[in-house]
């Protein structure tokens, strides 16, 4: 394939064969197209290498299939579709050719047919028909982008490797998102090559096809039909699948981002071609109008006579495919973007392994394509739901484990604090002297006595604490003696001794001995009157309740403290804000007074008859609306005070006017030259240059505008200058009722204002009105913004649809008459 030898026409046709729609090959475009041809050929080589081992029959089949599939793939490059009507004939011509020698040509032809033939590709030879076609069809559907590499690999070889590669190619095809048409074309051509390669193609293709058509109820149906094929009764069944396949194809396309609508007509074409194709196909009389997959399968049956060896493989594949189709294909397909051929490989292997035909036969008629889609979604939902469920369970489990842990901890704590139940006092706090004084039994006796005494007292105290307030907390000596006697007679003898020991020891043994006066420490046993436990033992519930209440109480306490603090802080903030507001209003008022006075003084200068001063109440009444006077009283008073103390240009005097004494203000500033500074500085001041095509886009591009240089954020004073900007813009564009959102970027150094209009037309008008005008001494420029960026930045503008109107007073278009 030395490119130098190609003439222009050859180059052209070669490119066309590979799926490119070249422009005219002239001396200028020649090198470009040569490069492109080289690229395409390389890709084909790769594909062919992979497909080399496929059996001839499968090759032909695949070729046929390629043709068939090619047409759908042709649909994919929608643009190229209309460009290649002629392919059909070539494809048709190939359909009945089964020789290997012609396979390459057929392949090419198939490719062409596939590409061009939106519907025409179906006519190819019976052998190559179904699987490769389907697969190639699907491949093309899915995306020829990767097909270039993979399709070639997948196509040709009937060997086990090839199915893998084919699946790979298919998968990759399926996976890749819409590639350019060229690529799609290339992929198709690759596929065609593969088809020629052999059965492997078929296998791969069918698998791929099934995969691609994972929408696949049809597949199942088809498998069922396939098993029943060769019967005319199946024809009716076949009628359905074609339709469905068409739908499927459309679904597949949707997923693959192919041109859905294109596919459907393609399918129809294929459907039409089906019968035609069928006739020459095989004596087995495969039923009529399967669309690709059905055709493939029926073809398989039909081709049984020819390729017995293929059939089992195919069947296995079909079965596997179907099982897969029913199980896992969809999810895979739904994950379009994953370009992992590994998945395909895996799928492929999965497919090839289960050669159970059982799914085929009983495969029920799936409902229509909508249901397929729904099922698809359901499966997705299931998988995701299961994932979610397991995650949910996991989280629940962790939560419950944590709760249990804390519960156990609390219980253990409580139990611990309700402690020493069965502590046998072998270790006692009495010291070694105790041990020496008495022998073993006595010692034990004493200790047991003390223990039982301790327990009893603890119970009593616990009872008392827990609410059973009838008894006293402590036991008197007599009661103790009685109790001890009840327990063990021998105790009594040692009672006093043990009490002595208790007194002697400095530690707390859990029994407190109190005498007549509660607080005094006892020195002698004889003074002991009452015994009390220092470690009361309370029943568990009581303990728990107390603990609970304690905790609650503490929590409430903390919450109260925090709430109090927060309340104080917010109150302080509120006060502060109110102060600010008041001050601002006061200053506002002061400014207005100054304005009034100044204007009055100017008026006085012109008109000598007026008094050069104004009574304060008059000023107030003219500035403040009657209904606001009581509210503003505070503000007014502060303003007056401020003026009298801080304003040097206004003097407060008392004048007699009309017989009454008034406090008046006199403006004592000599006339200023800077009238302009007083006037509102933000005005539109004319246009700098006429707008023509050179400095503005000929057509308005988007409804969003960015206006620059309307203000200087550093220089702006006042609270609501951005509103002034809004007003200015609205006034300038007052004839244009299409402005729906204005945003002033207060922090931008460039003085940017963003405007959104109802439509591009409105924005064009606004553009013409604003661009190049002078505003406040600055030259305003406008440019268009992308709508999505605008919405990103100002999400609230997405819903604005009401045109904004300027406020009544025309303030900013000072130089021009208000439009």
């Amino acid at each position, binding site marked *: 394939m030395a490119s130098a030898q190609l003439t222009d026409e050859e180059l052209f046709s070669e490119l066309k064969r590979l799926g490119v*729609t*070249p*422009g*005219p090959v*002239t001396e*200028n*475009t020649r*090198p*470009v*197209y040569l*490069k*492109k041809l080289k690229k395409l050929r390389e890709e084909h080589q790769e594909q062919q290498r992979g497909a080399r081992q496929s059996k001839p029959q499968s090759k032909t089949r695949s070729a046929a299939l390629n043709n068939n599939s090619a047409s759908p793939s042709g649909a994919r490059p929608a643009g190229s579709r209309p460009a290649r009507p002629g392919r059909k004939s070539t494809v048709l011509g190939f359909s009945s050719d089964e020789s290997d020698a012609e396979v390459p040509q057929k392949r090419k032809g198939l490719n062409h047919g596939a590409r061009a033939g939106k519907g025409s590709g179906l006519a190819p030879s019976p052998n190559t028909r179904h699987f490769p076609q389907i697969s190639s069809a699907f491949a093309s559907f899915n995306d020829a982008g990767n097909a270039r590499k993979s399709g070639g690999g997948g196509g040709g070889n009937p060997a086990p490797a090839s199915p893998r590669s084919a699946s790979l190619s298919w998968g990759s095809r399926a996976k890749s998102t819409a590639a*350019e048409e060229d690529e799609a074309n290339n992929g198709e051509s690759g596929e065609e090559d593969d088809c020629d390669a052999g059965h492997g193609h078929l296998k791969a293709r069918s698998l791929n096809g099934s995969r691609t058509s994972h929408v696949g109820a049809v597949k199942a149906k088809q498998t069922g039909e396939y098993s029943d094929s060769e019967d005319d009764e199946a024809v009716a069944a076949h009628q359905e699948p074609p339709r469905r396949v068409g739908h499927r194809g459309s679904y597949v396309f949707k997923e693959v981002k192919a041109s859905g609508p294109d596919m459907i007509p393609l399918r129809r074409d294929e459907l039409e071609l089906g019968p035609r194709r069928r006739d020459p196909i095989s004596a087995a009389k495969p039923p009529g109008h399967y669309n690709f997959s059905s055709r493939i399968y029926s073809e398989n049956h039909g081709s049984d006579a020819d390729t017995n060896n293929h059939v089992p493989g195919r069947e296995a594949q079909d079965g596997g495919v179907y099982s897969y189709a029913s199980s896992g294909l969809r999810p895979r397909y739904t994950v379009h973007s994953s370009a992992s051929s590994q998945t395909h490989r895996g799928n492929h292997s999965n497919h090839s392994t289960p050669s159970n035909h059982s799914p085929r036969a009983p495969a029920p008629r799936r409902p229509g394509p909508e249901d397929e889609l729904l099922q698809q979604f359901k499966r997705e939902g299931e998988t995701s739901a299961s994932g979610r469920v397991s995650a949910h369970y996991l989280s629940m489990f962790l939560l419950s484990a944590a709760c249990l842990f804390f519960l156990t901890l609390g219980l253990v704590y409580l139990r611990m604090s309700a402690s020493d139940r069965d502590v046998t006092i072998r270790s006692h706090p009495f010291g070694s002297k105790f041990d020496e004084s008495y022998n073993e039994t006595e010692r034990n006796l004493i200790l047991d006595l003390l223990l039982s005494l301790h327990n009893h007292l603890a119970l009593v105290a616990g009872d008392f604490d827990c609410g059973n307030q009838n008894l006293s907390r402590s036991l008197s000596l007599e009661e103790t003696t009685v109790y001890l006697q009840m327990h063990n007679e021998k105790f009594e003898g040692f009672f006093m001794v043990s009490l002595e020991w208790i007194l002697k020891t400095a530690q707390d043994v859990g029994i407190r001995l109190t005498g007549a006066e509660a607080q005094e420490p006892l020195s002698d046993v004889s003074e002991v009157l009452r015994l009390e436990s220092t470690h009361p033992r309370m029943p568990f519930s009581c303990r728990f309740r107390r603990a609970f209440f304690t905790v609650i109480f503490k929590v409430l306490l903390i919450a109260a403290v925090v709430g109090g603090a927060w309340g104080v802080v917010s109150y302080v903030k509120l006060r502060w804000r109110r102060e600010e507001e008041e001050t601002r209003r006061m200053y506002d008022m002061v400014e207005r007074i100054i304005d009034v006075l100044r204007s009055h003084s100017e008026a006085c200068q012109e008109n000598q008859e007026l008094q050069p001063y104004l009574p304060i109440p008059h000023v107030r009444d003219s500035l403040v609306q009657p209904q606001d006077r009581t509210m503003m009283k505070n503000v007014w008073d502060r303003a007056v005070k401020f003026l009298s103390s801080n304003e040097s240009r206004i003097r407060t005097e008392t004048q007699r006017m009309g017989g009454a004494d008034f406090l008046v203000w006199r403006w004592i500033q000599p006339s200023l030259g800077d009238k302009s500074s007083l006037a509102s500085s933000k005005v539109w001041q004319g246009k700098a240059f006429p707008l023509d*095509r*050179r*400095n*503005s*886009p*000929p*057509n308005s*591009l988007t409804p969003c505008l960015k206006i620059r240089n309307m203000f200087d954020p550093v220089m702006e004073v006042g609270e609501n200058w951005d509103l002034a900007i809004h007003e200015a813009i609205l006034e300038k564009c007052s004839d244009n009722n299409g402005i729906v959102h204005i945003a002033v970027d207060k922090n931008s150094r460039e003085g940017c204002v963003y405007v959104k209009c109802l439509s591009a037309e409105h924005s064009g008008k606004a553009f013409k009105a604003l661009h190049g005008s002078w505003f406040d001494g600055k030259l305003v420029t406008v*440019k*268009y*913004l*992308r709508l999505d960026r605008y919405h990103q930045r100002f999400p609230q503008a997405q819903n604005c649809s009401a045109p904004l109107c300027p406020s009544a007073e025309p303030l900013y278009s000072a130089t021009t008459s208000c439009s």
Partner: protein
Amino acid sequence: MSSTSQKHKNFVAEPMADKAVNALAGIGDVLGQRLEDKGFDKAYVVLGQFLVLKKDEELFHDWLKDACGANAKQQKDCSSCLKEWCDAFL
């Protein structure tokens, strides 16, 4: 619009008439000279080439690289300039 050059904007704003090939975005003096040497002395001739390549930007990139050695950015600028011009005026 945000990332196009002034040249681009100027070119796209009006029919190209008899503008020199330098007026294309991405084509400066050197590239313009090279194109002129090859016979593409006016912008409309380059436009013609673009159209002959069926407005395919990639093919046009390849061609431009062959014709005057434009780098990727220049190719892109030129092709998008022409494309936009076509969108506006063709």
